[in-house]
């Protein structure tokens, strides 16, 4: 197969659709008086983060692509470009997305890149575009290596990744309650993804899916949205700035400050970079497990309910 295989840059071509959908959601909310919230500076920050993400992918995309092409030259396998292969690639890349996303919440080095996506206290279609500028530095492109080595062309893998991101755009809304049952059972939906953006102890570290919610059900991270507990959007500790530079880099700054502080040993320095967010050498901060444990200490009635040890309920 030619190394020069190309697919459309789907995320760029989707920009007009993104703009139109945001306007439609906004008008819907204003007319109906329900279905979500918008705020000017919050939305502006989200949109600038989205534009910055596109700029960063144009400027730094060659690093990941170069790595993938290197792998492509190494592998003896070539699965071709049939529709069936693209479909399989899409599903496997979604599995890849699940794990990268899970790492993004459980490894602080990767969280430093992903945190900005969760930094809005709103949940609307502009939140979908609040994307990272620093994804390249997480080195999570490594998780795509098996796909390339299995014989999926790098251009196809990136095309499927782009489609995956476009799918995820529409689920960032409060305007849609629940989809039909069969759809909620298989696909990631606004309801499932609202849970993922929740800062409530119950909803922390849940629903990492991109397109198919089945991965969360398979790997034990699925928590259904509870009618009795409205999702509180944002970070455990919400930002005090709309400055996109600070939004993009604040966790990186936090890591470097923690790692370079005097009086701790090398293991602690490493842990500040790779342990789950909230880890601290002196126990002065809380990880999501500790937050859940504290919640259960004051609300024992929640024990065993979804998000607190029994995701099947």
């Amino acid at each position, binding site marked *: 197969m030619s190394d020069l295989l190309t697919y459309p840059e789907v995320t760029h071509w989707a*920009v007009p659709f993104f703009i139109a959908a945001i306007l439609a959601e*906004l008008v819907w909310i204003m007319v109906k008086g329900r279905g979500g919230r918008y705020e000017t500076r919050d939305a502006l920050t989200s949109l600038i983060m989205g534009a910055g993400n596109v700029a960063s992918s*144009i400027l730094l995309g060659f690093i990941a692509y170069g790595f993938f092409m290197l792998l492509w030259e190494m592998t003896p396998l070539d699965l071709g470009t049939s529709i069936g292969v693209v479909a399989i690639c899409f599903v496997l890349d979604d599995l890849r997305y699940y794990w990268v996303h899970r790492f993004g919440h459980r490894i602080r080095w990767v969280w430093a890149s992903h945190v900005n996506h969760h930094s809005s206290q709103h949940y609307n279609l502009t939140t979908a575009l609040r994307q990272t500028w620093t994804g390249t530095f997480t080195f999570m492109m490594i998780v795509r290596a098996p796909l390339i080595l299995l014989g999926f062309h790098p251009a196809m893998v990136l095309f499927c990744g782009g489609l995956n991101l476009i799918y995820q755009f529409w689920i960032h809304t409060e305007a849609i309650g629940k989809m039909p049952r069969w759809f909620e059972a298989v696909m990631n939906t606004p309801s499932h993804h609202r849970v993922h953006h929740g800062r409530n102890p119950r909803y922390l570290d849940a629903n990492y899916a991109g397109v198919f919610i089945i991965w969360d059900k398979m790997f034990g991270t699925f928590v259904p949205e509870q009618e009795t507990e409205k999702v509180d959007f*944002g970070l455990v500790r*919400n*930002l005090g700035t709309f400055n996109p530079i600070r939004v993009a880099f604040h966790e990186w700054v936090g890591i470097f400050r923690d790692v370079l502080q005097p009086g701790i040993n090398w293991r602690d320095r490493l842990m500040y970079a790779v342990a789950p967010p909230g880890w601290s050498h002196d126990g002065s901060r809380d990880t999501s497990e500790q937050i859940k444990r504290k919640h259960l200490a004051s609300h024992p009635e929640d024990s065993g309910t979804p998000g607190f040890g029994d995701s099947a309920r």
Partner: protein
Amino acid sequence: MPLTILLPMVIVGIAGIVLLLHVFGLSRAARLENEASARAAWLREFPDEVPERVIICRSGSAALVQLTAGFGVVWPMGADTTARHLTGARVSRTGGGVAIDLPDYTAPRIHLALDPQETADWSRLIEGST
């Protein structure tokens, strides 16, 4: 998509959406209506630290929270709120209130709109606590 199309579309799109939001009146900052709402806003960020006393400024745009050790502040982030401890804070008076500088990359400078009497009182309380 060529950059010559993508770039203008992104710029016009962002500007248009932001303008529309502002025209729709969606730039209004959150207000702390009463002590209970200020207390709830503080506890939303620091659920383990129950305030001993809450002082809301007359405009409802901020609250000073007295804790077992030191003070904290609650202020609007757009239509929502956030809060921080005032450990290591430096206070300076501005034309319309005070500016609080924090050693915190995520909230480096907080502007609070206060009347002259509140400016004096809050400056004294914050300076006395740090």
